[in-house]
C-alpha cells in the first residue's frame, strides 16, 4: 500500500476515481464546476510531476517515457478546453443534473484511463486501461439518449469489445512466444530485451492480432468503422477527445509493440503491413470524404486520413518516424478545433447536415474564421504546422524510394481537400435552404478563443518546434532500428 502511494500515479488514479464518483452523485452545478476544476488541477499536477520524473518507474507499472510524456501533455492541454466546452454544451442544453453528472464523471474516467494507458509500461496494463476507455467513452456517446446515439453506442462497444478481444488473443500469443524464451515478463522493456530470441511465428501472430485490435482505437483500416459513429454521436467536446487523445491511445498501443519487434526479423514485414494499412486508410477516408454530408462524420473521416498518413510515415522510417509523431501531436490539436466549433454550429442550426447549414459567416463571424483557418490547417496547407510534418513524411517516402506511393497519396489528398473545401465553403458562404434566422442564438466570440489558441499552437509547434518537443520525439523513436 505504501508503494501504492509512493508515486504520483496511485494518488492520481484514486483521486480521479473519487472525483468521478462525486461527480456521478453530485447534482449541484457549482459543485460540478468545482470538481471539474479540481480534476484539471490533478491532471496538470500529474503531468508536471511525470514531466520532471522522466523515465522514472512509478507504482511499478507506470513509467513516463518520452512518448507517454508527449501524449500526456497533449491530453492535459486538451482537457482544459474540452471541459470548458462541455460545460458550455451542458448549459446551452440546460442539461438535467443527473445526465450532467454522468457525463462529467465519464469524462473524468476517460481522461484518467487515457493518462494511465499512455504511462503504463506493461502490455497487459495498457490493455486494461484501453478497455476502460471503451467503457467510459461509450457512456459519453450515449449521452443524448436517443435511438441513434444508442445505436452508435452499441456498435462502438460491440466492435471495440471484439477488437479488444483480438488484442487479448495477441497478448496470449505473445505470452506463448515469451515462454519460449523462458521468461514471463510482459513489461515492454523486458519484451524489447528478449524480443530478438522469440519465435517469429508467434510474434507475427501476436503483432497481427494486437495491431488489428488497436486499429479500432487508432481509427485505421480495418476496424476504424465504429469510431466514426462514436465521434458522430458523442457531444462535440467528447467527440473532440475521441478525435484526438483517444486515437493517440490506439497509436501508442501499436507503437509500443512496434518498438518491441524492432530488433526482430519481422520488423520489415510489420512495416509493410503498416504501410498498406496507412494507404488503405487514406483511400477509405477519400471515399467517404467525397460522400458524407454529415459534418462530424466528415471530420472523423479526415482523422482516419491523418492516421493513415502517420502510419505511412512510421513505415517509411528515417525522418518519417519523427514526422509521424509530430503529425500526430499537431493533429491532436487541430482536430478538436473543428469538433469544438461544430458544437457552436450545431447550436445555431440544430443540425449537422451540410444541407441545413450555410452562410455561417453571417451568423457567427469568429466561428466562421475558426472554420476557415482550421480548414487550411487540417488540410496541411502551408504555413500550417501540419504541412511541415506532411512534408517530412513525403520526404521520408521519397528517401525510401516510394515515389509512386507519394503520387498516389498526393492524388488522394487533393481529392480530400477538394471535397472538404467544397463543404466548408458551402457552410461558410452559401445561404441554407429553409432556415429561418429569426431566433438565431448569438454566440460570443470568446467561446472561439480556445480554438484560435489551439490553431496558433499548431502553427507554432509545426514551424518552430521547441527544443524540448524535438528531443522528446527523438527520444520516442530513438530505440527503433535505423
Amino acid at each position, binding site marked *: 500500500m505504501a508503494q501504492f502511494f509512493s508515486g504520483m500515479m496511485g494518488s492520481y488514479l484514486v483521486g480521479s476515481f473519487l472525483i468521478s464518483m462525486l461527480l456521478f452523485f453530485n447534482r449541484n452545478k457549482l459543485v460540478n464546476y468545482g470538481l471539474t476544476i479540481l480534476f484539471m488541477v490533478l491532471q496538470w499536477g500529474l503531468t508536471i510531476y511525470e514531466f520532471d520524473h522522466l523515465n522514472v518507474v512509478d507504482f511499478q507499472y507506470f513509467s513516463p517515457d518520452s512518448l507517454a510524456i508527449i501524449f500526456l501533455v497533449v491530453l492535459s492541454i486538451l482537457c482544459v478546453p474540452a471541459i470548458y466546452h462541455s460545460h458550455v454544451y451542458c448549459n446551452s442544453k440546460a442539461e438535467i443534473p443527473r445526465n450532467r453528472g454522468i457525463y462529467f464523471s465519464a469524462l473524468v474516467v476517460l481522461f484518467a484511463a487515457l493518462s494511465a494507458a499512455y504511462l503504463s509500461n506493461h502490455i497487459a496494463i495498457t490493455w486494461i486501461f484501453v478497455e476502460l476507455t471503451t467503457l467510459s467513452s461509450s457512456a459519453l456517446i450515449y449521452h443524448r439518449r436517443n435511438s441513434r446515439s444508442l445505436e452508435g453506442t*452499441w456498435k462502438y462497444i460491440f466492435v471495440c469489445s471484439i477488437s479488444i478481444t483480438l488484442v487479448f488473443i495477441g*497478448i496470449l500469443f505473445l505470452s506463448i512466444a515469451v515462454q519460449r524464451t523462458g521468461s514471463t515478463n510482459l513489461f515492454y522493456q523486458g519484451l524489447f530485451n528478449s524480443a530478438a530470441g522469440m519465435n517469429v511465428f508467434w510474434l507475427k501472430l501476436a503483432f497481427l492480432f494486437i495491431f488489428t485490435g488497436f486499429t479500432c482505437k487508432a481509427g485505421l483500416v480495418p476496424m476504424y468503422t465504429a469510431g466514426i459513429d462514436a465521434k458522430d454521436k458523442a457531444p462535440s467536446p467528447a467527440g473532440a477527445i475521441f478525435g484526438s487523445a483517444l486515437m493517440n491511445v490506439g497509436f501508442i498501443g501499436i507503437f509500443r509493440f512496434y518498438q518491441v519487434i524492432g530488433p526482430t526479423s519481422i520488423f520489415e514485414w510489420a512495416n509493410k503491413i503498416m504501410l498498406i494499412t496507412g494507404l488503405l486508410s487514406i483511400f477509405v477516408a477519400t471515399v467517404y470524404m467525397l460522400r458524407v454530408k454529415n459534418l462530424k*462524420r466528415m471530420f472523423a473521416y479526415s482523422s482516419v486520413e491523418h492516421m493513415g498518413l502517420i502510419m505511412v510515415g512510421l513505415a517509411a522510417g528515417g525522418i518519417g518516424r519523427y514526422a509521424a509523431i509530430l503529425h500526430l501531436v499537431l493533429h491532436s490539436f487541430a482536430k478538436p478545433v473543428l469538433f469544438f466549433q461544430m458544437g457552436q454550429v450545431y447550436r445555431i442550426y440544430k443540425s449537422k447536415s451540410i444541407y441545413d447549414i450555410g452562410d455561417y459567416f453571417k451568423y457567427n463571424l469568429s466561428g466562421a474564421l475558426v472554420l476557415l483557418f482550421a480548414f487550411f490547417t487540417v488540410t496541411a496547407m502551408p504555413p500550417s504546422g501540419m504541412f511541415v510534418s506532411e512534408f517530412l513524411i513525403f520526404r521520408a517516402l521519397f528517401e525510401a524510394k516510394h515515389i509512386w506511393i507519394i503520387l498516389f497519396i498526393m492524388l488522394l489528398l487533393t481529392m480530400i481537400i477538394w471535397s472538404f473545401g467544397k463543404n466548408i465553403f458551402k457552410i461558410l458562404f452559401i445561404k441554407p435552404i429553409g432556415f429561418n434566422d429569426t431566433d438565431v442564438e448569438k454566440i460570443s466570440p470568446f467561446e472561439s478563443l480556445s480554438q484560435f489558441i489551439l490553431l496558433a499552437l499548431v502553427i507554432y509547434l509545426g514551424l518552430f518546434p521547441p527544443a524540448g518537443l524535438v528531443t522528446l520525439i527523438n527520444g520516442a523513436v530513438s530505440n527503433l532500428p535505423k
Partner: protein
Amino acid sequence: MTVILLAIFAVTLIYLGVANRLSSYISVLAVQGVILFGVAFIELIEINWVNLVFILLETIVFKTIAIPYFLKYIIERNKITRDSEPFLPDFISIVIVTAIIIASFLLSNAIEDPHLGKIFFVASLSALFTGLYIIVTRRKIITHVMGFLVIENGVFVLSLAVGNEMPMLVNIGILLDIFASVFLLGIFANKIGDIMKEQDVEQLSNLKD
C-alpha cells in the same frame, strides 16, 4: 481428461452451428461454462488457491449460471422471438463450423510447440471463429452477444493454455469477460428494450454513409 472435455467443447460448437432456438444457445453456453470449469480445475490445480477459487467461481457462477439466466431474462423481457434467424441454412452452417474446426486442427498441427497443448489451441481457435461466424450470420443482436460470449470462452481456453505460467493473464481474461459481457448485456437489458422494440440488425443500421 482435458482432451475429452475440450472435445466435448468442440462438439458444443458444432451444435451451436445448427441450433436454431435461442434457448438452445443459452443452454450450450451454460454447458460450455461447466466444461471450462472442469478444464480450469484440471489445468490450474497447481497455482495458488486464491486464484484458483476466483477462476472457478468465475466459470461456474458467472459463465454457467449468471449469464444464461441473464440472457433468458432479457429474451423474456424484450419478447424476443425464440428463433435465431440465420442468414444461411443450417446445413451450410454445420459444414462451415466443421470446416473451421478441421482447419484449426490442421493449423495447430502445423505448429510444433512443447509448451502448448495443441488441443487447447484447436478448441480455442474453433471457438473463436465459430463465434465470429455466428456473429456474422445471425440476424438478431442477442445472437451477436452470444457469439461474443462464445469467443470469450475460446479466449478463456487459450488463456488456460498459458495460464499455469502466467495466471495473471487468465485473470485479465476473466476481467475482460466480466467487463465486456456485463456491459453489453447491461445496455441490452436496459436500453435497447426500452427504446426499440424490434431487435433486428436492420433496426440498428441507420448510422451509415
